[in-house]
């Protein structure tokens, strides 16, 4: 099912420190394609959970519209929306067994008992929880409870599956396993799924599309690959990617970008007035080093490992940056080397507004 969100706004009655009403979601418009996995991503307080709660119907909207396919569901209560919801704490009914938990939505719908159990067992097999049908939630591990919660959300064949921080209560290893599980279950069931996360790695690893939010405003909505390769502004470039994108402060000149603290120029073309304060942002993999003559001079500080890769920490003028280097690179501290930037993964932003120039 396709989800269309038009000018969605949520204001809360509480006020911020300036006495203004808190705007949790501000005039957000987006369209989620059917059968895709969409991540609502952003730092805490960006309104992503508010978005999810408005999609489920738990929170009423202040203004704007939500459509499921062509049906306006803005004013429907949660029980009428046919969505499945998995909470961060799973919210399993503690007095019911796994089977009863999964059957609950069908019981409410008055599905006959035999059919109810058959459907619940089918879903339980899909999420690999069928061995534990007679256990109580408290007798399950976190990952198993998570699977039960997903099964309960899926058993009524919802049009939309919503997951609120589905992985944050799990330990690191299980988190990796479960996020692939979520991807698999989503693919198998084919249900349009929206999940909330503050972890950019989680979002980029499994989602088809990412909605990146900051302080209630959508910063970018695009395919997961594009959000990394083509960030809309400095905030997006900074939020997505690990290691964090390098940022060089400096000035735009007719021949290129001049970082602070050096007279050398990095050649880059953009439609900006000369003398504008800008930030050159470069992914670690877009920075290359050579001991020859080509590129801008930099001073080597240190070298360290991030698992299989090695990162070199260098200074260009007053700016510090990191780039990937060969594992057999011979480190000589304070050595002056040359740095070049690839075309891909290098962007120019306005220093103040974060607006992208190129």
């Amino acid at each position, binding site marked *: 099912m396709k989800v269309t969100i038009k000018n969605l706004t949520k204001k809360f009655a509480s006020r911020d420190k300036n006495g203004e009403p808190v705007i949790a979601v501000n005039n957000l418009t987006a369209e989620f394609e059917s059968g895709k996995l969409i991540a609502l991503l952003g730092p805490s307080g960006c309104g992503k959970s508010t978005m999810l709660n408005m999609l*489920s*119907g*738990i929170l009423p909207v202040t203004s704007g519209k939500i459509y499921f396919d062509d049906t306006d569901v803005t004013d429907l*209560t*949660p*029980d009428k*929306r046919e*969505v*499945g*919801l998995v*909470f*961060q*704490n799973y*919210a399993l*009914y*503690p*007095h*019911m067994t796994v089977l009863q938990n999964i059957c*609950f*939505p069908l*019981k*409410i*719908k008055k599905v006959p008992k035999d059919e109810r159990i058959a459907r619940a067992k089918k879903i339980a097999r899909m999420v690999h929880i069928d061995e534990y049908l007679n256990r109580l939630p408290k007798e399950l591990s976190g990952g198993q409870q998570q699977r039960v919660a997903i099964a*309960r*959300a899926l058993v*009524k064949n919802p049009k939309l599956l919503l997951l609120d921080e589905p992985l944050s209560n799990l330990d690191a290893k299980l988190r990796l396993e479960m996020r692939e599980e979520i991807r698999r279950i989503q693919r198998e069931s084919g249900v349009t799924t929206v999940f909330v996360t503050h972890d950019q790695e989680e979002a980029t690893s499994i989602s088809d599309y990412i909605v990146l939010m900051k302080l209630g405003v959508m910063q970018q909505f695009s395919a997961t690959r594009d959000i990394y390769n083509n960030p809309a502004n400095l905030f997006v470039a900074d939020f997505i990617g690990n290691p964090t994108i390098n940022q060089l402060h400096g000035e735009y000149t007719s021949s290129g970008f001049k970082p602070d603290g050096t007279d050398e120029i990095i050649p880059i073309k953009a439609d900006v007035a000369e003398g504008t304060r800008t930030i050159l942002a470069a992914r670690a993999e877009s920075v290359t080093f050579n001991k020859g003559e080509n590129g801008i001079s930099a001073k080597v500080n240190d070298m360290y490992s991030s698992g299989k890769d090695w990162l070199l920490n260098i200074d260009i003028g007053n700016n510090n940056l990191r780039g990937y280097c060969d594992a057999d690179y011979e480190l000589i501290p304070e050595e002056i080397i040359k740095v070049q930037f690839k075309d891909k993964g290098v962007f120019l932003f306005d220093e103040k507004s974060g607006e992208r120039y190129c």
Partner: protein
Amino acid sequence: MKKISAGRIITYVLLAIGGFIMVFPFIWMLISSLKTWAECGSMPPTWWPHNPTLENYIYAFKTAPFLKYFRNSVIVTIVCTAATMFNTILCAFTFSRLKFPGRDIIFSLMVSLMMIPYEMLIITNYTTIVKMGLYDTLVALIIPFTSSIFYTYILRNFFLSIPDSLYYSARVDGASDWQYLWEVMVPIAKPSLVTIGLLDALACWNSFMWSILVVGSVDNRTLPFGLFAFTDQAGVRFERLMAGSSIVVIPVIILFLFCRKQIVTGVSKGGMKG
């Protein structure tokens, strides 16, 4: 073999003495009710009756309609408790889950009613019942006791401790507020509800002052009132009085034996929440 320490022995001896002191009056009541008049008054008292007899019970049932009293007590207790439970559950749900303007103020006002002593309400309740034309009916025994602010307060606090996500989860699963209450909240609150129900049933069963005020005829008496009347009918015949008392007390003791576990855990849980 497990070694038994001196401290443990002392503990058990003290507990045994305490237990005996608590239980002795009941045992003595039962023993006396089986004695003849002569033996009951004899000095020194005998432990076990020489000629155990059920005569006193037969007399009690003949002089006073204990079966009718018993029936009345059962009706009043069941209806009162059921109504109280129902109202308490709905009220606790309203004041914990539903949102409406003035909710907390209204609830504080209700809780402040607990400060009015029961004795002060008796007069107003009495005039109300008489004006409603319900004097000397079983309904008069039931109507004033179909809700309890105290139990509502306890249950509301328990409901508040149930996470919001469970409510939203049930709503998304398609449940209405009403279904959520009965399918999720009430089952989770079962231990608290059993405790509340038992305490309320005991209070109804033992209710004495109110029934003596609003009931006149023999037909509408409950057991405590009946027993009170029986003390006149039995006169100084102690053994008969003890038989009457046993009839009143034994059902409650049986109820307690069956539900002992729930009462104890429920009370200790409620106590911790304060």
